[in-house]
């Protein structure tokens, strides 16, 4: 028995030490080992014709394509596609679709059309709520840009997406993007299957996502070869073209050191949330991640517990002129995990240096006077009145910690050096007055 205990202790320490090495070091979502998507199941993802054209010249499909033109001839392309076909998983999970959904609008019966339209409209609404267009550009018919506000080369352009992919893959992709591409920046939205179906319907049907094809292209037919010599040739071409530098491809030897951490390690709690939702695509934590959304390094000292929890579940509009946070549909328990982590770790010591403020109704009036005297309302909105440049302050007392308000008023550039807000150089007394006023701005019960 003693031996068994010894063994288990040793095993435990081994595993424990290995885990410690990984312990939450924030990893920037932009530090991917490979930039291209995995190619192992590409055959299940894209249409054959699209793949052929893409291999022929990626710039033809997308002028901003990051993949080089490998100058392959027709035979080589077929060989490559045959190899990719040979390595794909035989069973890729299928989703059942109602037959009529594959029909064109005009071919449907009235009842079918109505059912489809319901789904389509719902999809369009989900698309809007989820704020997909923050990351994804869509170049409309007149090359007019729709969406894609995060100009950080995050989402791909979706203008012709429904000529490229199929419903089945799209469903699985939206359901769990990391399952197909572990390093992707695409977050996992907690959609219900029904919501995914509706959004698939919207993307696959709406004219925004299509582009007319020339006639001769559609008539071309591509047949994969099962010939082993052809498949081997395809493999050789993939090897010689060094595709493996950017793509994961089954059966091709790696050339560069590959960091497999993200795929192998089981992560929990907040780490898992960061990985799933990819918060750091937009938010910055301790110098890592995007700079598009507010920095979270001191969010624990800044934001109130209750507010974090409710905001994560249903993000509200704070800065009307800027983009809003997408609605990821986080569950209550997930929001709780995030809240606890933020409150515990994202802190600044400075907050402790000032005494706690307590709500004092008698001091509100003084602050209010000062607020309007200094002209804060020209940028900030309280109730129905005020400017829209700064955050809406109607319920600011529910959102911000009072100590943070005070510190921020004393120097708005303390936590955000490039903040637009001017430094008024308030005295301690003035800042206190304003803090009391702002603390009192709460949701009416």
């Amino acid at each position, binding site marked *: 028995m003693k031996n068994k205990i010894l063994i288990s202790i040793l095993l435990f320490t081994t595993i424990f030490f290995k885990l410690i090495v990984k312990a939450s070091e924030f990893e920037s979502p932009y530090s991917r080992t490979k930039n291209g998507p995995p190619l192992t199941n590409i055959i299940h993802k894209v249409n054959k014709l699209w793949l052929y054209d893409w291999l022929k010249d990626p710039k033809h499909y997308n002028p901003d394509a990051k993949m*080089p033109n490998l100058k392959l001839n027709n035979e080589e392309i077929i060989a490559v596609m045959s190899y990719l076909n040979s390595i794909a998983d035989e069973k890729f999970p299928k989703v059942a679709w109602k037959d009529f959904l594959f029909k064109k609008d005009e071919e449907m019966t009235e009842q079918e059309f109505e059912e489809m339209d319901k789904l389509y409209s719902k999809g369009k609404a989900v698309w809007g709520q989820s704020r997909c267009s923050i990351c994804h550009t869509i170049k409309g018919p007149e090359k007019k840009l729709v969406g894609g506000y995060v100009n*950080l080369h995050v989402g791909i352009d979706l203008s012709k997406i429904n000529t490229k992919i199929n419903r089945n893959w799209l469903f699985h992709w939206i359901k769990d993007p990391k399952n197909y591409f572990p390093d992707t920046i695409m977050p996992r939205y907690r959609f219900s299957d029904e919501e995914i179906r509706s959004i698939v319907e919207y993307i696959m049907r709406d004219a925004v996502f299509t582009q007319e094809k020339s006639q001769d292209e559609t008539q071309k037919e591509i047949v994969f070869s099962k010939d082993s010599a052809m498949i081997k040739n395809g493999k050789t071409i993939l090897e010689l073209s060094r595709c493996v530098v950017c793509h994961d491809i089954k059966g091709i030897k790696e050339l560069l050191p590959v960091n497999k951490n993200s795929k192998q390690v089981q992560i929990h709690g907040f780490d898992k949330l960061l990985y799933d939702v990819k918060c750091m695509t937009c938010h910055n934590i301790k110098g890592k991640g995007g*700079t598009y959304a507010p920095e979270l390094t001191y969010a624990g000292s800044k934001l109130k517990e209750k507010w974090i929890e409710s905001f994560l579940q249903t993000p509200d509009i704070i800065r009307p002129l800027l983009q809003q946070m997408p609605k990821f549909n986080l569950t209550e328990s997930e929001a709780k995990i995030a809240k606890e982590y933020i409150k515990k770790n994202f802190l600044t010591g400075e907050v402790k240096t000032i005494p706690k403020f307590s709500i004092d109704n008698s001091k509100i009036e003084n602050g209010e006077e000062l607020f309007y005297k200094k002209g804060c309302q020209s940028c900030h909105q309280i109730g129905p009145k005020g400017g829209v440049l700064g955050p809406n302050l109607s319920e600011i007392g529910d959102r911000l910690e009072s100590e943070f308000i005070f510190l921020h008023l004393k120097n708005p550039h303390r936590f955000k050096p490039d903040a637009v807000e001017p430094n008024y150089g308030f005295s301690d007394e003035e800042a206190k007055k304003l803090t009391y006023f702002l603390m009192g701005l709460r949701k009416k019960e």
Partner: protein
Amino acid sequence: MGINLLDEKIIILVIFINFSICSKVDSTIPEDIEAGKKIYEKNCQYCHGITGKGDGHAADFLNPKPRDFTAGLYKIRSTPSGELPTDEDIFNVITKGMPGTSMPEWSNISEKQRWQIVSYIKTFSERFAKEKPPQQISSGKEPTFNSQSIEKGKKIYKRIKCFLCHGDEGKSDGVITTTLWNEWRIPFYARNFTKAWTFKGGNTTNDIYRTISTGMNGTPMGSYEEHLTSEERWNLSHYIKSISKEEIFKVILKSKFVNGSIPYGADDPYWESSDYMTVPLTGQITVSPRWQNSSIDSITIKSFYNEKEIVFLFEWDDRTENTLIKETINNINFDTSFPKIILQPQDEVLSDAVAIQFPLKAPEGQKKPHFILGDSENPVNLWKWSADSKETKEIIASGFNSSIYIQDLEKQNVEVKSIYNNGKWKVLMKRNLRTDDDQDITFEKGKLIPFLIYIWDGSNNEKDLRSSISSWYYLVLEPSTPVKVYVYPSLAFILAIYVEFLIIRRIRRKK
């Protein structure tokens, strides 16, 4: 209960796992390792780092970066792709250094000490203790180096797609190299085959054959052992050897006299007959902002002149043609430790440029202006060509910390032509030997005229003082050969023969 056999095995296994995490085992003699450590810490750690991670103090300023010994990935090996090197491989690199990088040769320390460094370096990576000693690859018999083997090699170069990285003409401007660099900011450069002196593993056909066969671990250069027979690899190495050029190092550029019109076209075949020199360049590291990571390392210069004008042809290899100064939206900057990519939007893409610098007057004696933009007593005149405007502007500078100004339009006397083709810029500049401008140098025959070159590579974020720069070199206009030079010696020659002939005849007659 006794220990059963299975448990025993598990214990050993677990202890081994724990042990291998905490300590490194090495088979070589501890004293040698200890001695090697001392030498390493005296000579090597400034670049390779005290822990062998390639993060020494100098590492930030080096390009390519020093080797990270902890990864156990070695480029120059005689062993199959992915394997460890043999001890001799490491020893050879220490002894010979690595051309085209900052690794010097260490033949000045004793052979024994170099072997001790090898033992110490091997302790940085666990791989040496864990893996079996590697087998060397066999090289086969080298076919004769001739035009046929080169021709065969050329076909293979195309067939196995070397051009995707190394470019159609071997200038390292292939689509993959430029994409990895421009789109992804992943710092991998394919080697430029036309510059023999930068081949990391050496430039003999043997060396090239070895690199083709073993690949370079940790880079996109894989092994071609599976794809090519031994003979094909030899042919390919012959082809690469045939397109590689040696560095022609000179101090004086001779401009030849041309009777009539001088070539005024960058592709004029007349240039083939010209004398040329390769000027080595390095980053400007004397004045802030210091620039250690310059990308252009050499330029070739040719020149001709006639009674009226002088013309220069500048040729240099640049992977990318950067002609526009524009704000990019999707710019990604790389962190030196691959593969981390950090986003830095609103970075600008700059334009390629070249400049030649002359003193305002050819100096008497050795004294020259300060090499970076001259000095207050000795201002300099720069002819600066920029790829965005395709124009050359004459600039007057009198020191790097005083103002620099572009001369007025009527004082601009330099004409220019430029083309970019297959990873190479060719820029041609022409000016009259004498001008009305007193701030222009006068080109006089037979006089030594100092000149200096700057190059800016836009894709490498170079502008102003962030440039490649050479030291001072000299230009000399070779005096045209007057007719007299040919007439008098021949006359003397004929006269001599005639006299000899007379003497011989007289002797014969006397007999």
